């Protein structure tokens, strides 16, 4: 298993090759990409940034948990930082396992945990010239007052 926070273009097929094993009956490849429309606004690109040392340790912990829970050491993840254009990959997750259900389960576990707890942020650039930090916790109000923890 391996995880990395990188600042270069991701190569999904390289990660897929990295998890290949004669003992595996299934390989999964997840590629997260920058999409054109978010919440009805036209997106031109995204800046990804991180609290890098903690992002590295949290991502490594997530991968170790997935390997333990689903029973495969063949889990590899890379997350890219910097300015990404439409269609570019921000994250690649490759898993292989003897059985497909476990391969898919491990992959889903990794992406959901990354979104929940790895300290990485994205600021979208919109067609109207504005830029905004994406806040997945924001439902209806435009933020909450600065006080206490959630």
């Amino acid at each position: 298993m391996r995880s990395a926070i990188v600042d270069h273009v991701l190569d999904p097929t390289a990660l897929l090759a990295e998890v290949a094993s004669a003992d595996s009956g299934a390989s999964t490849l997840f590629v997260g990409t920058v999409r054109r429309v978010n919440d009805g606004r036209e997106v031109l690109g995204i800046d990804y940034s991180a609290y890098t040392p903690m992002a590295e340790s949290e991502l490594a912990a997530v991968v170790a948990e997935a390997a333990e829970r689903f029973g495969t050491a063949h889990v590899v993840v890379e997350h890219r930082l910097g300015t990404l254009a439409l269609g570019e990959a921000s994250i690649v997750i490759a898993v292989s396992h003897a059985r497909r259900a476990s391969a898919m389960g491990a992959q889903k576990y990794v992406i959901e945990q990354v979104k929940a707890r790895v300290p990485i942020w994205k600021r979208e650039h919109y067609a109207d010239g504005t830029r905004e930090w994406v806040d997945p916790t924001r439902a209806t109000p435009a933020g909450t007052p600065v006080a206490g923890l959630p």
Partner: protein
Amino acid sequence: MAVTVLLFASWADAFGPRVELDLPAGSRVQDVLDSLAARAAGRTLPAPMVAVNQRYARPETPVAASDEVAIIPPVAGG
């Protein structure tokens, strides 16, 4: 004691990427948040998590001068 706090994303925009807080000995994570809120001057920011020495911490977690305290706004990786 002087505590260095790292900030990211919207919180870094508001306060800068690093602030020094002068807190009483025995302070906790909640005291760090209260101190920052006092400087917020009415600005609205998303409720953050806090990490101490690169691990998520609770409001009651103690903070020492040598700790690396980080304000973690809602994460959006992937």
